């Protein structure tokens, strides 16, 4: 018995040392680019941010812009030999055509401009499962998908809810505005399902470190039920990608709600706070739909150029030894 206990103690100690060693490893510094999957055109500002609604005749900078164009931003993150996408844009051009979008380009084509290929992508972390953020998964054959269990659970709950006013989807008469199942379209869900079936999906329960220093943080109900953020160490300090929990960078800066979907505004503000705590401010929060993206008014994204079909791309940070991929 003593020998068994002794052996167990040795194993336990060795395991503890091993875990400690992993934690103590220098965090990998990653290189980061931002790519515009498509752009929603002429969106009333108030539909995106209620507190920025256009007021005719207003002289306030907060309320004198009637419409904005909203990019759909995808993070391209290189950490050593691993290439990660945060979000994956649209897949079905039919879907985006019906939403008045323009400047769509296939992600594999955009990655080629950065001298990457679709086969190089090893991980895809989707901030949430909406149609403009979880498309094109099937175009990355070697990528493992990371999605929160809470996101999948909530979609299924919403679709099965007996009240049709609550289970309304995008194809219902009049559309679905901001009901719980809005934005989850069959072919997008099929993309996620395909990854699960091929053993290329990690169903995440809350926090998860997917590489040293690269961490998923849950942001439940900050946009959708199972939204998740991604913390990335870079030469600029830590960045936090937020998908639509961080729809607007100005909103994070000014503490306003943005792109309210299945959102609990309290949770959205707590998600903003998480970025402040992790990065030390708002400058390094990466927003999915910020209208000022790819300009010097959103400084993180100012090192930008034009890509295929008028889509935009930006180089955000380079790890030591990484050369610029800006054309």
């Amino acid at each position, binding site marked *: 018995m003593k020998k068994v206990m002794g052996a167990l103690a040795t194993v336990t100690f060795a395991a503890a040392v091993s875990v400690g060693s992993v934690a103590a490893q220098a965090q990998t510094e990653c290189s980061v680019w931002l790519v515009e999957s498509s752009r929603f055109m002429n969106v009333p500002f108030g539909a995106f941010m209620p507190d920025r609604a256009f007021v005719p005749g207003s002289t306030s900078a907060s309320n004198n812009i009637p419409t904005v164009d909203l990019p759909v931003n995808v993070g391209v993150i290189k950490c050593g030999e691993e290439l990660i996408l945060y979000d994956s844009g649209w897949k*079905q051009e*039919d*879907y985006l055509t019906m939403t008045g979008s323009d400047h769509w380009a296939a992600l594999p084509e955009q990655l080629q401009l950065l001298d990457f290929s679709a086969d190089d992508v090893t991980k895809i972390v989707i901030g949430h499962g909406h149609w403009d953020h979880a498309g094109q998964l099937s175009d990355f054959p070697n990528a493992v998908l990371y999605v929160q269990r809470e996101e999948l659970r909530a979609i299924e709950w919403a679709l099965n809810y007996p009240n049709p006013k609550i289970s309304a989807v995008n194809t219902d008469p009049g*559309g679905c505005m901001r009901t719980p199942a809005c934005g989850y379209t069959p072919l997008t869900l099929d993309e996620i*399902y395909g990854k699960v079936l091929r053993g290329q999906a990690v169903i995440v329960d809350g926090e998860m470190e997917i590489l040293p220093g690269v961490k998923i943080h849950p942001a439940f109900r900050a946009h959708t039920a199972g939204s998740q953020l991604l913390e990335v160490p870079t030469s600029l300090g830590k960045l936090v990608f937020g998908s639509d929990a961080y729809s607007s960078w100005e909103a994070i800066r000014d503490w306003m709600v943005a792109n309210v979907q299945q959102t609990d505004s309290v949770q959205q503000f707590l998600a903003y706070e998480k970025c402040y705590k992790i990065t030390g401010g708002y400058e390094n929060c990466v927003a999915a739909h910020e209208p000022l993206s790819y300009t010097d008014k959103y400084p993180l994204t100012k090192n930008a150029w034009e890509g295929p079909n008028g889509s935009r791309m930006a180089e955000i940070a380079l790890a030591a030894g990484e050369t610029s991929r800006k054309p």
Partner: protein
Amino acid sequence: MLTVVVGYALQRELARQPAGGAVEPVAAADPVRALSLEEEAYAAALWPIHREAKLGALAMAFAGIAYKTDGHDAARLETEVIPLVERFRAAVDRAQALDVPASVREVHERYLGVLASYEHAAQVTVEVARDGGDERLIDAQEISFRAGEDALRVGDVLWPGEYKPH
């Protein structure tokens, strides 16, 4: 809904006119055109079948996701998907019973193929639940995915504004 569909289709047709105002003839095969009254009635009759089919496809995907990620419960998979087989079969029967204008016969046949594919995918899924062989779920998912894309092609003709922004 019909007003929205026809209005949207008309808007798209008008947007295609050259600046001088002359009306370009629309090719018979052009999917983007205003529906005739009979075509409109057919599209309206097919719509509830289509909505149920899409929800069934979503339910099938979620049943598969739950099976793969939550305990490999084959009994639960079978219980959830058997009704979908019946739902898709009933949808085929209902669609076949519709009055179909000759001008959209080809679209109709394509849509029958969509429903048959969904039924097939559901049937394969039930077989997996009974016999094992998870790799066949990939076959079922691919069948369902292609059916979904075909459904979008049908929607181009019958319901051009099918998916609304949110």
